[in-house]
């Protein structure tokens, strides 16, 4: 189990880095899809099977389709070899920001007191368990989600209108 987690985590990290450093946006998007899969695998290892399935359906199967659509069809030309060189200042500031973030994360991690792991309740992460808390304890957020989705629909129409008129 530990080995599987380490492999998945390593692939997740590497693909995450590749998303950022790829010049070709299509490749970036494909690495991001790989990244979503590894994260789904990690959810599965944590016994959250429902969330793992949702991760694949929503992120890999829906959101990335939209991303890929936009990237592929907005006529983004592939940059010529060595066409756009990054400035030295860009590189230095990027590295500095990443370094500061890493230091903050490490600092926070050293401050946390990790207690002994809790006993897992039977049925943890199953669809029934998720459903039960979603439709009883988190009723209001659930209903508000529908309003959020409604806003997204209206937003999409208005954006498209602005382009068409």
């Amino acid at each position, binding site marked *: 189990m530990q080995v599987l987690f380490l492999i998945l985590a390593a692939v997740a990290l590497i693909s995450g880095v590749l998303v950022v450093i790829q010049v070709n946006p299509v490749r970036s998007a494909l690495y991001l899809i790989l990244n979503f899969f590894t994260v789904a695998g990690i959810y599965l290892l944590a016994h959250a099977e429902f969330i793992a399935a949702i991760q694949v359906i929503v992120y890999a199967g829906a959101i990335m389709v939209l991303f890929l659509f936009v990237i592929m069809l907005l006529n983004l030309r592939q940059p010529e070899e060595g066409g756009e060189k990054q400035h030295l200042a860009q590189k230095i500031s990027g590295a500095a920001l990443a370094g500061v973030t890493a230091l903050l994360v490490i600092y926070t991690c050293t401050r946390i007191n990790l207690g002994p792991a809790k006993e897992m309740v039977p049925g943890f992460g199953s669809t029934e368990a998720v459903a039960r808390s979603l439709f009883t304890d988190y009723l209001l957020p659930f209903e508000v989600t529908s309003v959020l989705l*409604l806003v997204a629909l209206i937003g999409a129409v208005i954006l498209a209108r602005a382009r068409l008129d």
Partner: protein
Amino acid sequence: MLISYLPILVYLIISIGLAVLIVALSEALGKKTHTAVKDLPYECGMVPISDARHRYAVKFYVITMFFLVFDIEAIFLYPWGVIFKPLGLFGLIEMGVFILILMVGLAYVWGKGALEWE
């Protein structure tokens, strides 16, 4: 529970291997020739004018965005369907409100003509 996912992993590895094997076999077996005309994109014998990668109609993106919204709605319905019986009337009203709000969205999109395709 995790052991029940092991066959899926094995199945995935075997089917990836199979797909790679088939592509590699046909790559190795067939002969290859290139001529200037054959290398052109196929356009029913016409000489292609300009690149294929144009900008395409915004409708395609709009449909994908609608899909995103309704896909998420469907995702909420799965866990609800599973525990529908124990939830009872309370659950039905709850989901009725949720579906109603999204039906309003569908009606809006419909009324605005965003689903028309001419």
